């Protein structure tokens, strides 16, 4: 090895200072960086821009005036009863879906985390709805929950009338339960990973102290997986905010009378079907602000608890 290789020249030192020790990293991550900017950062800014302008679709290359209109789109959106209904619907959805998801996925993950027979079979069964397309499982739920479907045949007189998906009071809860069922496998996976990090000794000392199974679940498992619970809650909220396929197909476009419409469904209807991307973007921005507010409130709560 020669001395020039070990003592960097001035030029080498300059590039190191400017680009870092291994500038080739810039080259290797460049495609991904460009992707992040082009598909996330730029559209995010563009969505905000569109929401503050009067914006219409044009053919490629055609330019039309798109005047700045301030908060006009936002006031139009907030005055629209259908939009308000959609935000109320998603609140109902989250109130049902998030607690159900957290409780069921933690219980099932705990049950799966023991040496039991057929463990692989159970694990695989819980993941299968998660890996299947919504469009496919929506098909079978339509069949199961139709007016004379199997579920109502079993329930007999106890079945709601009109049936689940066309009932104003049951449409949104049905969707919330469908999505819980569909996504549960993924959250079980997250909890199973978290359970591996709960020290075994804690369970042993709880058992020595004579704690019941339920007691050790509450005082060892639940606090032990708290970071995972934060993540599961956040991801469940984001999944809920993205709701589109289910109201579009399961309740035939957010029916009955808009009682199961979601904000994203309205973004599609107002933006693409009716050609008002500016209004649709305003709905989207409000939706993201809502998600961020809930996430911030959740972090505050966490911090106060710990």
């Amino acid at each position: 090895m020669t001395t020039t290789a070990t003592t960097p020249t001035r030029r080498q030192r300059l590039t190191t200072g400017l680009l870092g020790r291994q500038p080739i990293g810039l080259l290797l991550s460049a495609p991904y960086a460009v992707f992040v900017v082009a598909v996330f950062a730029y559209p995010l800014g563009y969505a905000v821009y569109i929401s503050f302008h009067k914006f219409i679709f044009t053919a490629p290359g055609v330019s039309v005036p798109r005047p700045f209109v301030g908060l006009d789109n936002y006031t139009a959106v907030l005055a629209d009863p259908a939009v308000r209904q959609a935000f109320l619907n998603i609140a109902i959805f989250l109130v049902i879906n998030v607690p159900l998801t957290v409780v069921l996925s933690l219980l099932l993950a705990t049950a799966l985390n023991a040496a039991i027979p057929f463990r692989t079979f159970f694990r695989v069964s819980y993941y299968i709805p998660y890996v299947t397309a919504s469009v496919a499982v929506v098909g079978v739920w339509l069949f199961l929950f139709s007016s004379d479907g199997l579920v109502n045949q079993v329930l007999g007189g106890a079945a709601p009338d009109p049936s689940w998906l066309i009932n104003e009071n049951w449409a949104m809860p049905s969707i919330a339960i469908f999505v819980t069922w569909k996504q549960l496998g993924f959250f079980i996976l997250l909890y199973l990973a978290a359970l591996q990090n709960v020290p075994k000794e804690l369970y042993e000392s709880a058992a020595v102290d004579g704690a019941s199974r339920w007691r050790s679940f509450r005082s060892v498992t639940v606090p032990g997986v708290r970071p995972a619970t934060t993540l599961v809650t956040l991801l469940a909220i984001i999944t809920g905010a993205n709701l589109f396929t289910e109201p579009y197909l399961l309740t035939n476009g957010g029916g009955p009378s808009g009682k199961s419409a979601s904000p994203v469904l309205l973004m599609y209807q107002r933006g693409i079907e009716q050609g008002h991307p500016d209004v649709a973007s305003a709905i989207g921005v409000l939706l993201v602000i809502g998600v961020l507010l809930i996430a911030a409130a959740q972090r505050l709560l966490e911090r106060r608890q710990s």
Partner: protein
Amino acid sequence: MTEPKEPAGHRRPWLRIAGLTVGAVAFLFPFYYMIVGSLQKKADTSLGGALPSPGNLSLDNYREINAAISLGQSLLNSAIFTAGVLAGTLVFGVLAGYALAQLKYRGRGTLFAAMLLLQVIPFQLLVIPLYVQIVRGYGLSDSYLGMILPFAINSVAVFVFRQFFLQLPIELFEAARIDGASELRILRSIALPLVRPALLTATLLTFIGPWNEFLWPFLVTKQAGKQPLAVSLANYISTVASAATNPYGSILAGACVLAGPAILLFIAFQRHFVSSELGSGVKG
């Protein structure tokens, strides 16, 4: 999967197994019913209809859905869409994951922060501006490229790659660098063979994204000949199905064809899709 940390359910194991069994039935029954319903000549929603009856079995529903949405072409479109996303993720995602984990350069922290941040942005918010850009701006409607672009590199997969590359000992790379190996060579002949499990996990994770995606390809494709199966089946459910002789049967037949490849692939590789491997796959 590593050994369970919690002591085995030695006190009341049957309660645990009973609970899990009830759950498994609730999770699997709809899939069983999907297959049974897809084979019924006449839709039978009675309790007895949950069991296949020999007199009411046929493949007519598959013929009907194939005539309505041309399953072969739709499957091919789904496959091209998915393959494009997989290729982008396995090439550019691996490069980025490696750089983020093992190389020191300016902007690495920013890129990593951006990657984490975009996990909390609901993708659907970006649908309107992406539609304006890709469909109206670049005129990429009814094209595979337009479908693939927003999904070209799966960020979760980049994150998984980074986690796996992080666990490789840095001395390994230092030694190769002193021997004068280029970074691409180090990646190809040292790092990649060591993270084979990560490649499988990420491939599986990435596969279900585009294969199951509905909203974006639905917006991009208007011609039936370019629609992936999820889109053509959804259009069939919302518009055409009412005209069929057994609408539920043909919907379920289409659902089986759409669900089949993802479920079979998942079952075949399920042992790579476990929690411990997402965290510590290179140790084993």
